[in-house]
């Protein structure tokens, strides 16, 4: 209202605004906020590590923390489940990676004593690594289902930290 720009300048300004916004979003904001990193620039800048910022200062306060490392082999063309028992509101911090090959996975929880086969998924994707944390919404078995759709076995290196009892592998 206060400016009298030519249509050309106006369009140029708008286009520049959109281009800057798109560049910053794709390379910086989305990797840092959601671990969404289509270009890989966010990971190179170390921004994707920010995507789960609250873990360190919250989880460290708990007393009965434990920490474990596992090597889980997912056979070719098969799926495996690896579970931990958590009480309601207990937290787990995790980090896993394959040797590069992506795996379909479903991070979920099953309520204790449930016989209907009900489960609640916290994350479903196909990735070769992931880190994050979750708070158990109910007492029960919580963990991953990994599915290997390739022709060779894939090893998942899993690192967990939190309040849990290991249940382990369920085939």
């Amino acid at each position, binding site marked *: 209202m206060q400016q009298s720009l030519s249509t050309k300048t106006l369009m140029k300004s708008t286009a520049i605004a959109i281009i*800057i916004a798109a560049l910053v979003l794709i390379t910086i*904001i989305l990797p840092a906020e959601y671990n*969404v990193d289509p270009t890989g620039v966010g990971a190179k800048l170390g921004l994707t590590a920010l995507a789960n910022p609250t873990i360190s200062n919250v989880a460290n306060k708990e007393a009965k923390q434990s920490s474990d490392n596992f090597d889980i082999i997912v056979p070719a063309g098969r799926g495996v489940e690896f579970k931990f028992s958590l009480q309601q509101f207990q937290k787990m911090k995790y980090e896993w990676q394959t040797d590069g090959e992506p795996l379909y996975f479903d991070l979920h929880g099953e309520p204790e004593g449930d016989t209907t086969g009900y489960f609640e998924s916290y994350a479903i994707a196909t990735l070769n690594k992931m880190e994050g944390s979750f708070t158990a919404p109910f007492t029960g078995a919580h963990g991953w289902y990994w599915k290997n759709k390739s022709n060779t076995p894939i090893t998942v290196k899993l690192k967990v930290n939190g309040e849990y009892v290991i249940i382990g592998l369920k085939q």
Partner: protein
Amino acid sequence: MIRSTLDLPVTKKTYQLFFSILALSLIGLIPFESMAHGVDENTRHFLLNNKGVQFIAFMYIGAKHMVTGYDHLLFLVGVIFFLYKSRDILLYVSMFTLGHSVTLLLGVLWDIQVNAYLIDAIIGLSVVYKGFDNLGGFQRVLGFSPNPQRAVLIFGLFHGFGLATKLQEFQLPQDGLFINLIAFNLGVELGQFSALVFILLAISFWRKHHTFQQFSITTNTLLMSAGFMLIGFQLTGYFVI
């Protein structure tokens, strides 16, 4: 531009002063924590455990949310960018206040559930709108500019829903809710007022300088850009989380 002969020569010092004030005012807009969505950890604990009336505490949370809420502040920067008279500034800020107070109070009291990401995306849109309007875009494209006072009021309503969603996350107990809400709302206005003082200081200082004219296009383009970023950020959140 009229320049009187009494104008001081633009020395290096003036530039330095100008840029340091600009830098300081920008720092105020940069989020140190991800505040524009949600509240920080200590506030979270407080809100989850609170029972009954806590007037000053809720007022503080409201003020803090506003001062650190860069989405609200960006919109305010856009709104007052070309307002020169204090009467206009008062009028527009009152419209904004009226808008967001209504939806903040009703949103929480009537428990109107709106998606926080979508609301925050609309708040981003309000920033784009204001930047585009400041560039004279609506005049150029539509042949007229949407009534700016009405627009501030309407976008104010959305900003209020945004504030409401932050409180609704906590399912605040009914006990003392109304008083706590009034306190939160008062805090929001206090925070808005103190942020405005700084924004106005910086802008009116800048206006005296010829770079204000030179950079007003750039500034409003960047404002639009920031609005687009907010939209992208919140919409991605809506689809990813």
